[in-house]
């Protein structure tokens, strides 16, 4: 039963590893769909919690997957999920890194570069949509999200962790002051 879960983690995350074009935020929508709706490893609420925890911890934000593995099958699940997400893309990167320099300047080289960029953008937008959809995000979530985006856009030197803390404080303040369920 447990080894079943481990196999499932591999079957789910290995293809995601190879589809994460433009970075792992591009697969958040699909991770959410699989982990919450298809496999039932975590609830929609837990997904948002794991997302927040993984963003507050050091390391790539995609370590959300480590936590999903942990929820699904404990420590070994965390290990398997982490390998499943990082190993396939890393092996591909290793192969390409060995040969990439030889091809720079060829026309198809830049066509691939330009052609993949909008795919990555669309995937990231889908990820934002997926996280907010499950969070049942109210107006305050949108205000804080857009506010952080604008603030970091205008003041790139602000440490991102500060914005996360500020987001938390704003939510707590609104909850205690207004008592509004936002």
């Amino acid at each position: 039963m447990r080894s079943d879960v481990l196999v499932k983690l591999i079957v789910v995350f290995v293809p995601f590893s190879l589809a994460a074009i433009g970075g792992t935020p591009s697969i958040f929508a699909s991770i959410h769909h699989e982990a919450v709706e298809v496999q039932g490893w975590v609830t929609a609420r837990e997904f948002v919690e794991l997302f927040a925890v993984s963003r507050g911890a050091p390391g790539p934000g995609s370590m959300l997957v480590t936590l999903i593995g942990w929820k699904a099958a404990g420590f070994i699940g965390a290990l398997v999920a982490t390998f499943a997400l990082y190993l396939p893309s890393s092996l591909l990167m290793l192969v390409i890194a060995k040969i990439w320099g030889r091809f720079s300047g060829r026309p198809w080289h830049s066509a691939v570069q330009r052609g993949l960029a909008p795919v990555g953008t669309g995937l990231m937008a889908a990820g934002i949509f997926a996280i907010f959809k499950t969070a049942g995000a109210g107006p305050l979530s949108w205000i804080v999200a857009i506010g952080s985006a604008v603030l970091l856009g205008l003041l790139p030197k602000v440490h991102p962790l500060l914005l996360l803390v500020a987001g938390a404080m704003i939510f707590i303040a609104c909850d205690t002051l207004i008592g509004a369920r936002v």
Partner: protein
Amino acid sequence: MAEQGAVRLLDIFLVFLRIGAFSFGGGLTGWVYRDVVQQRQWMSEQDFLSGMAVSQILPGANVTNLSIYIGQKLRGTIGAFAALVGLLLVPFFMVIGFFLIYQDISHIGWVAMATDGVAAAAVGLLMLTTWRAGAQSGRNLAGAITVIATFVTVGLLQLPLLPSVLCIAPLSIAASRKHGPKDAK
């Protein structure tokens, strides 16, 4: 610049271990640049930027791809894995540790609110990244159509990811062949 093979494996491992351990709030690529190019001069800026471009194009987390690229450039395959393991080792245990602490305190009322606040701010950071990427990649019609088509397919319709990407990506690449290199950024 360091010659190939001149950098010790242990040093590669330790540099990435430190970057991984202290990379609160993202922005890891900046730390990698500072350590590898500016402080240690393990590679030229040109090499680094070219590696960063490949890391972003290829699937996978950008920073793990970048660490593979740097490690491989310095010490081949084994160097690549020294960098990757170094980068992920501490965050792996810390993210689990953070989660265990979170579980212990999650019954406290304000913690749930704080979680929503962190998630919302983190989504905001993603929005900015997406906005910037979109401003670049959505400049021509084909790019804009690709962004929307990808969002609808994966985000709204929730079609399987890999097949969707394998259908859209070749079309997008074919379309971008028509624009001359003048469009290239």
